[in-house]
């Protein structure tokens, strides 16, 4: 038996029969729709030892404060999102706070503040439930060494943090009886705005307005500060660090030109080796389709034409943006780690597991389904759907002859202006 095969998951004997059925059905629903969930990933495991090894190394380094990230590439339907759910479980098990952000219209990669807010919203905190930043903040122990280091870090001029961040920490420690202000401060840490006047009023109450001279700032310009502050907050609260899984990065291909350039610039920052240009303290893992280089950088011509088009545009930051976009494209071209297609042994094992889950979910004995020859080159997503579709139909009518049709679904990389506007038609950035 291949060493890549892992022991078959048994639904916990401590579960009631009913809850085991619900978990099994959750897994089947997730596999049926191609959206992996915790139950499906727990049951099927993850057969990517190379990626697992690299991720473990990334986590080990992260404990010492390093933020080097990882780029994961794979074709559509080859299991990237499944891998991400698995990595999230691994990170949380090792006491990391872990966020999984799906790039979408609401969370565009070029808008780092949106990415931050989404990361806070989606964060899983080991052993806690509820709003992540709230839970993390409540764990701060003002008497601990970790907190003292955090406080000193936030107040140190060397880290170039906007003054509102140390100010917020100062206030948080001192106004523990003012629930409304605590609520506002925690929401600020989660990416919301507090007005300059509100900050000043609260600081004045402690005679500290002059110590923290807060001025207006464009919210988006604070994004790197938010990430850096939150990463340190997480460590101060006793966690190993913050892992950020960014999925479906290929959506950036559809952005209008300038937003696409900014998205490339963000990729460059996320995958930078140098702490000076990266989001320090956050460990990023990005998932990208493996044909992005060919389809977008080459055939669509972004590599050749995008920087020039940006430099030619009338905008103060054109040169800087073009340079940063080029860095991002180079990071993509360097490549990352690629998902391995499953071996026939692994496929057989996966079929066996899914068959068992389907049987548990619907209280029947599904027949074994060796993959039809024409399906052997299919993506794992298509195979899973083919098995489940056959079992669904056979369970309803065992006499039916199932003849499957398979459509090729591929991501669309054509530009779409609507992805750059909100529902009122305004450009998002």
């Amino acid at each position: 038996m291949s060493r890549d095969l892992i022991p078959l998951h048994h639904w916990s004997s401590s579960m009631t029969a009913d809850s085991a059925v619900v978990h099994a059905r959750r897994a089947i629903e997730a596999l049926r729709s191609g959206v992996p969930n915790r139950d499906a990933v727990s049951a099927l495991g993850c057969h990517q030892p190379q990626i697992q090894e690299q991720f473990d190394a990334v986590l080990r380094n992260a404990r010492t404060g390093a933020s080097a990230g990882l780029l994961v590439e794979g074709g559509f339907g080859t299991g990237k999102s499944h891998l991400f759910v698995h990595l999230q479980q691994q990170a949380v098990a090792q006491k990391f706070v872990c966020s999984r952000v799906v790039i979408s219209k609401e969370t565009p990669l070029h808008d780092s503040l949106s990415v931050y807010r989404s990361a806070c919203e989606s964060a899983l905190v080991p052993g806690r439930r509820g709003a992540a930043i709230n839970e993390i903040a409540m764990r701060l122990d003002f008497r601990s060494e970790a907190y003292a280091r955090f406080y000193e870090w936030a107040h140190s001029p060397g880290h170039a943090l906007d003054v509102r961040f140390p100010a917020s920490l100062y206030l948080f420690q001192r106004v523990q009886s003012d629930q409304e202000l605590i609520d506002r401060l925690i929401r600020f840490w989660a990416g919301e705005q507090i007005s300059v006047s509100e900050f000043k009023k609260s600081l004045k109450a402690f005679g500290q307005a002059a110590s923290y001279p807060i001025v207006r700032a464009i919210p988006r310009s604070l994004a790197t500060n938010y990430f850096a502050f939150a990463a340190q907050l997480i460590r101060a609260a006793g966690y190993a660090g913050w892992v950020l899984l960014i999925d479906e990065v290929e959506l950036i291909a559809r952005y209008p030109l300038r937003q696409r350039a900014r998205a490339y610039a963000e990729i460059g920052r996320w995958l930078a080796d140098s702490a000076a240009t990266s989001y320090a303290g956050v460990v990023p893992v990005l998932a990208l389709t493996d044909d992005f280089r060919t389809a977008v950088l080459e055939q669509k011509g972004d590599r050749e034409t995008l920087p020039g088009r940006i430099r030619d545009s009338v905008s103060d930051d054109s040169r800087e943006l073009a340079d940063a976009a080029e860095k991002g494209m180079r990071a993509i071209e360097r490549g990352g780690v690629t998902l391995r297609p499953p071996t026939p042994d692994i496929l057989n094992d996966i079929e066996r597991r899914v068959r068992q889950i389907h049987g548990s979910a619907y209280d029947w004995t599904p027949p074994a389904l060796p993959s039809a020859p024409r399906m052997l080159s299919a993506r794992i997503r298509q195979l899973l759907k083919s098995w489940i579709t056959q079992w669904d139909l056979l369970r309803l009518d065992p006499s039916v002859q199932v003849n499957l049709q398979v459509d090729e679904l591929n991501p669309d990389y054509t530009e779409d202006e609507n992805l750059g506007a909100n529902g009122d038609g305004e450009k998002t950035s």
Partner: protein
Amino acid sequence: MQLPLREWLATIDQEYLGRFIAGGGAAVKFAVPHDDATRDALRIGLRRLAIDQGFAFAYVDGATTRVHMVDQIFFSVAKQVEWESLARAFLSGLLTQNGYSLPDADGDLSCRSIAASNGREELLLRSEIFRWLERAVYRDYAMTQEFRLAMISLCKGIIDPSAAPILVASVRQWLTGELRLISALKSALIFQRITRKNARHLLSSLPHWLRACGKRGLFLVVDTSRYTIATRTKDDQVYYSASAVIDGHEVLRQFVDGTDETEGCFILVLAANDFLSDPRRGINCYDALRLRISDEVRDESRPNPFASLVQLNDG
């Protein structure tokens, strides 16, 4: 390929509502009815199914509610929820679990009445009930904090009807999007309005609360058939720009991805007939949704009633 409506409703009834959703599962499905008659029959059929099976049913019509905004969906659902009945049911359960006898079904659940009928001092009983609420609601982290605080306020409003009636009314207005001043909720420790940022978490808290109050969960139907109407109509029905449609598809994508964090909830998206064919406003205009619900692997001659996306005829 189309499925007969009757067959699909039977699948939802037997395979989803009864054991899976009632047992704490969650699912999101998309249905494309063949015509308006099928759409109406579907809506009526689903409502009957949901209520017969003990679920709370909510229908959100994209013609009158801007369903591309999740907070508007939540407000519409909140207007269809009987908040006071739920709070009463929850309190009845809490009191019974702690050994207290209750007046008749629609009886007075005020602290005074419960204390009198159980031989207890009202003042001391009140402290105990608030402790139970703290344990049973405030520490139930399956619900977001603001939702928990709101439900506690509603319960307290039943325990002490004369203590803070304005606060209770304000909480209900907050839930339905009708509250003018957020400062009215300060004493409930709620400091922000419901917006697109927090509405999704409130919406996923609701099925959990419904289950705590004795319902089996939430059955939510969102009708998005207005998405494919490309020109403004002369009536006052909501018009969706192409960009708003994509916002709406993103909301639906989040529903699909959010089933892991939800329990006891079935969401059905009712789409227009041309949802599958309209290139600018249908399923093909937003990859993130298309790649999640497309029926890419199917039998040549039999539609799968379990598929994420089904086409229905009035059979």
